């Protein structure tokens, strides 16, 4: 089964990102294909590398980065939602005159078309949010 996962909420505030992560991990362990994980609304905040969660708690951002690396996942942060919330990569920094970038490893910023494409190309779209 080919899956696209959508994550609508940021790390820690809601359980959505955690639920999406464990679902995605389980799907991979069962041999399914993750076409894309698309982060929308406050979900784009899963893509900042600047979080410092307490040592005794899970590191949500790193967990996604590590899963992406281990399985060559396509983690996409929506550009429009990212611009609103300040998630920035090199391209966005240059385009919008920002003096820093903060995108985490394994994430890339791209358009809403990536979500629509995911829905078209995948067998299932699973949305995690509030």
């Amino acid at each position: 089964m080919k899956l696209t996962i959508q994550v609508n909420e940021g790390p820690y505030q809601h359980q959505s990102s955690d639920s999406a992560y464990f679902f995605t991990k389980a799907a991979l362990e069962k041999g399914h294909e993750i076409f894309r994980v698309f982060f929308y609304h406050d979900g784009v905040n899963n893509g900042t590398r600047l979080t410092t969660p307490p040592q005794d708690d899970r590191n949500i951002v790193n967990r996604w980065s590590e899963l992406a690396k281990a399985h060559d996942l396509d983690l996409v942060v929506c550009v429009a939602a990212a611009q609103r919330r300040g998630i920035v990569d090199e391209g966005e920094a240059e385009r919008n005159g920002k003096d820093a970038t903060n995108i985490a490893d394994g994430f890339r910023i791209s358009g809403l078309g990536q979500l629509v494409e995911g829905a078209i190309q995948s067998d299932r779209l699973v949305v995690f949010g509030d």
Partner: protein
Amino acid sequence: MSDTKKFMYVNRKAPYGTIYAWEALEVVLIGAAFEQDVSLAFMDDGVYQLMKGQDTAGIGMKNFSPTYSALGDYEITKIYVEKESLEERGLTLDDLQHLVWEDEDEDWAEKDSIRLVSRAELADVFADQDVMFNF
């Protein structure tokens, strides 16, 4: 044509209190370019998104409600509004924008985009879809 999927964008949240209504609409507009078989559903608090006369000056937010009237130009002609959700909220179709599309096969005749349906009818429409979008 066999590659076309039936997309249903489900709208259940009120506008302005949260961003979901607006950011959902952004997906619909971008998605229109992908030429799928698109429907929108407004139920629960989503029906509030279509209310006429929104004036956001006092809350300092962009009034995005005019965007709904452009949906016809994006070839989005199937907009389901759930009757029970309207009634529970003391609303009628008259409280909502009149959304239309122009049928080029009938000399650009203007047709209603909004289909007022019962919950049971909407459940049947949902059953017929391929992909459900939620925000």
